[in-house]
């Protein structure tokens, strides 16, 4: 088996120890960024939905400002965002390389996307249901917690799946400028040193990772849709 592998993927076998490390780095970036940008994305999405025209706490100014900020950050390509954020990253993390150096950009790059995804999930809650809740005498806080969030759990799970999958892509880009992880491996060995088998292996691992995320997402959606 080993012999067979080393004839087909000699570099992969040689670098076998590095794969788990890189995978862990990628997972670290995924989880930390995922959790933080989920929290902020959810918060922004809620603010957008309740403050928009006809929302339960309509507020044109807050909606306008948040809406524009999110659009602004969504329109910056990630690789440029990372360059743009170098100063801020150094200030916050005291480094601009490694996982710590990548996190601020990853979070800033992912949160607006997450916010938009969750916003559209929340917007899918039938207006009539919100109205019925108001007619029942629920407070805005109760409506947000027990109606908006509860009713859109499947939509939010779907949003999280899509966002995490696109975040895998971002971690690979971040890897390319020194954040470590699977992307970093593919570039360092595969691209710079022509070790194509390393690239293939990275692709296979990422494919498995994405399949896993998608399956978990689908499972949650299925379990929570009635």
């Amino acid at each position, binding site marked *: 088996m080993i012999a067979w592998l080393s004839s087909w993927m000699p570099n992969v076998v040689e670098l076998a120890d590095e794969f788990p490390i890189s995978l862990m780095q990628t997972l670290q970036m995924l989880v930390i960024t995922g959790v933080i940008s989920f929290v902020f994305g959810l918060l922004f999405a809620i603010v957008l939905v309740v403050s928009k025209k006809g929302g339960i706490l309509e507020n044109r100014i807050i909606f306008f400002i948040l809406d524009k900020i999110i659009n602004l950050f969504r329109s910056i390509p990630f690789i440029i965002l990372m360059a743009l954020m170098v100063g801020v990253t150094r200030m916050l993390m005291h480094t601009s390389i490694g996982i710590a150096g990548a996190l601020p950009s990853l979070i800033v790059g992912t949160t607006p996307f997450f916010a938009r995804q969750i916003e559209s999930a929340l917007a899918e809650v*039938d207006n009539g249901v919100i109205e019925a809740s108001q007619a029942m005498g629920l407070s805005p806080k109760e409506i947000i917690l027990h109606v908006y969030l509860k009713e859109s759990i499947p939509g939010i799970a779907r949003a999280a799946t899509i966002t995490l999958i696109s975040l895998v892509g971002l971690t690979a880009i971040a890897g390319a400028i020194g954040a470590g992880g699977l992307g970093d491996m593919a570039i360092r060995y595969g691209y710079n040193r022509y070790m194509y088998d390393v690239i293939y292996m990275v692709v296979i691992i990422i494919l498995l990772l994405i399949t896993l995320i998608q399956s978990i997402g689908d499972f949650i959606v299925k379990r929570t849709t009635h």
Partner: protein
Amino acid sequence: MIELRHVSKTFQTKHDHVHAVKDVSLHIEKGEIFGVIGYSGAGKSTLIRCINLLERPSEGDILVDGHNMLELSDKDLRKMRKKIGMIFQHFNLMRSRTVFQNVAFPLKNSGLTKDEIQKKVSELLSLVDLADKKDAYPSQLSGGQKQRVAIARALANDPSVLLCDEATSALDPQTTQSILKLLKELNQRLHITIVLITHEMAVIKEICDRVAVMEHGVVVESGSILDIFAHPKADATKKFIQSTSAISKIYEMVENNHVFTQVSKGQWLIHLKYGAGNTKEAMLSHICANIGVEISIIYGNVEVIHDTPFGDMVVILDASDEKKQAALDYLEKSGVEVEVIRYDCVVKQLDAECR
């Protein structure tokens, strides 16, 4: 119970103002079923939504149970809303919750214990005849069942008022009947005041005590069902009433001299209008048996509204003139309005032509 004083609502749209409700004043009594009827866009929904302030009126006052709704703080308004149940055309149930959870939902923070909530919800579900569906999700229910869940939910906090915005408009006629019957029962058993809006006169006729007719944001006429049906004044009202009866078709047939409406010598074609007064006896059989007039019925649509027969009947009387006249006198004395459409071969309006 509910008083609307000079309520107006104007919507600001990009290009102009929409005067959805214009200077409406209504007084809805405790325990009655009050209907609001009007065509689409008449402002019915806007008006009913003003009662629990889902829509804030631009002008006017709204009093529910003596409280001026517009002067309540947000917190008091929410407390007040718990005492005003509301149901909707599209049910508006939460998809993520079971029937039980939907009905229990308004009881959050009500101070009831888990067991008390369990008991309350079970009672409500038996009240709407859905005890066996308590663990189903709304997507597994029919429209009529969904509306029953919505009714149970609306009743959770023992409201004194139930607002119904086109509650039966998405349902088939049979289901509509069963929901209306349920509302009537609730009204009688719980003494809950019901405000119901609809565009179907049949719904009004079925359960309402009083009705207001709306057109272009204005209440053009209001009164008890019997008054409105017997003596409609506004054109809109007449149109709605006509929509529940085919009597205008008969008049068309008379004008076209349709064979059904032709009478031979000694016969009168008459139109009996029930509803004005006390018409409880079996009058036609009395005329037949005691006065000796032969009757053939051309058209009949008489139903019972509030224990009073109401509607139209078109019949041909055949007997001597004296007997026919006696029959007419008897009918009028019994409170039926009578109009002779044709006598002998003469149509009243078309006298000249026939001679």
